[in-house]
């Protein structure tokens, strides 16, 4: 009744469609460059780890991962810590301009990164943050803070109001109630929101590339630049790509039931 005829076949075909390109990337990352260019092989005939070895030993490569992780973690911390109180406010109170503020946040989540690339460049150069992880972390707040507010608002609304009232009757001050009672209650929600902030900051390239030049260059930018400069080192490119997929693939299992919620701005 719930499903449609032939669903196994449809699902199977769709999953193959999703996995095939990824398999091809993984496949290429284990091939030598001569095997990639000379023959079409469905699996690596002379498997090699040389590309991975190069990435893990060459500082100009692995520093990219560290730079990316730095701004992603910074961004996640900033986003969650400013979004928590706001989510509580949106969930519990009505106040002047709340609906407009909500819409304004939504519109920022939707704003094209390309519009902000140049002004961000000027802004962060002017205040001396250009080419630091802080610049990218703050820039990514423009879409991650609204997202975190929405996801957390859903979770806070799931906490019964009576709990707040009882806590205040028991003499809890607001900050103490917030940290001791509310935060533990919505811990899973914070985890989900943190995951999505991490993810959206991790996948973004345009702003991250514009706001860095040398010392904070993210892995995504290193991938594009090296490829154009050094001719085509396909194996290395594939290996670098595989390594960027891993963080997402590792944590995806834990948030599998919340994925729709996170992408739908907490509205599902």
């Amino acid at each position: 009744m719930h499903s449609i005829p032939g669903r196994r076949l449809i699902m199977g075909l769709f999953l193959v469609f999703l996995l095939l390109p990824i398999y091809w990337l993984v496949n290429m990352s284990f091939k030598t460059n001569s095997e990639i260019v000379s023959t079409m092989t469905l699996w690596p005939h002379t498997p090699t780890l040389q590309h991975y070895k190069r990435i893990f030993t060459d500082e100009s490569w692995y520093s990219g991962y560290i730079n990316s992780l730095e701004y992603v973690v910074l961004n996640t911390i900033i986003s969650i810590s400013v979004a928590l109180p706001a989510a509580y406010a949106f969930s519990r109170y009505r106040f002047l301009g709340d609906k407009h503020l909500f819409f304004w946040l939504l519109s920022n989540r939707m704003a094209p990164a390309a519009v902000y690339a140049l002004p961000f460049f000027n802004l962060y150069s002017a205040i001396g943050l250009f080419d630091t992880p802080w610049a990218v972390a703050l820039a990514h707040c423009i879409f991650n803070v609204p997202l975190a507010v929405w996801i957390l608002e859903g979770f806070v609304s799931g906490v019964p109001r009576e709990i707040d009232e009882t806590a205040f009757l028991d003499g809890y001050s607001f900050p103490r109630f917030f940290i001791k009672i509310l935060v533990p209650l919505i811990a899973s929600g914070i985890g989900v929101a943190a995951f999505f902030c991490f993810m959206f900051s991790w996948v973004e390239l345009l702003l991250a590339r514009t706001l860095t030049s040398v010392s904070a260059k993210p892995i995504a930018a290193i991938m594009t630049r090296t490829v154009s400069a050094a001719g085509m080192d396909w194996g290395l490119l594939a290996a670098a790509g595989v390594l960027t997929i891993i963080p997402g693939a590792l944590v995806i299992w834990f948030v599998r039931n919340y994925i729709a919620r996170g992408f739908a701005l907490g509205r599902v």
Partner: protein
Amino acid sequence: MDKTVNQKAWFLVLPVFLVVAFSAVLPLMTVVNYSMQDTFGNNQFFWNGVGWFKELLDPSTDLGGRFLASLGRNLFFSLVILAIEVPLGIVVALSMPREGWTVAACLVILALPLLIPWNVVGTIWQIFGRPDIGLLGYLLNAAGFDYNYVSNDIDAWVTVIVMDVWHWTSLVALLCYAGLKSIPEAYYQAAQIDGASRWAVFKAIQLPKMNRVLLIAVLLRFMDSFMIYTEPFVVTGGGPGNSTTFVSIELVKIALGQFDLGKAAALSLVYNLIILIVCWIFYTVMTNAGVERKVQASSEPAVEPKPSVALKPVPALEPKEGVA
């Protein structure tokens, strides 16, 4: 709901307001400032009024021609991917296994493309589609198609569209799946008793229950495809020629490539305005739908949390206006 009015809540919202204002309002002010001026380098600026905007919206000038052409391409692209991804997403959501470990496995695999950095998505398809080293390009050429996304406009378009379908259909599917899961078992039982056909169940129960998530899916897919940059840029670089140059790519070319601040700023503002309008329309529709849902929910109490009060939700079987 019974929210209390409390203006002090602004203090709780203040950090968010400041952070977002710092990254949104300040830069936007710069954009407005630039859009009215012209520069000959050396930080010398001249007042240009609405000159850039006039040029931008006039297809006979170079700037206007490029902008309107990329806007047209972008709208076409958005419509095509919506037309493919929404039905496909619904079908995939309906094909989800019902229980067991396969559900989790399918969810994880579906979500995988969503979590790949956008430039790597581009890289994956760049590699996958190349006629010399990519499986797809190799097979297509072996099958007799003269496929090459670097030199042929249509091939480039197909590649970019298939890439987007690969990347984002899962999102639509996951959203629809979340919507489908919220339908109480009692609805299906009622439909079975009424002898409803498979198609009637879809039209009268599943589609109406999904329309809120579908709205969100369409909004997100429209917005994200309207500001797409990284993936086509990595695969085709906007080419061959200008055939896959979308608005964001054009904007970055003007702003960071030519450093034409005035033109880029004017383009940014118009671009942002379009997004804002579409966003507002969706937001209004969405909140109205939400209110409707709440009214409905309160008029049939205790149906959703307790599906055991079976057969009560039969009214839902009568197709709503506009759906049938």
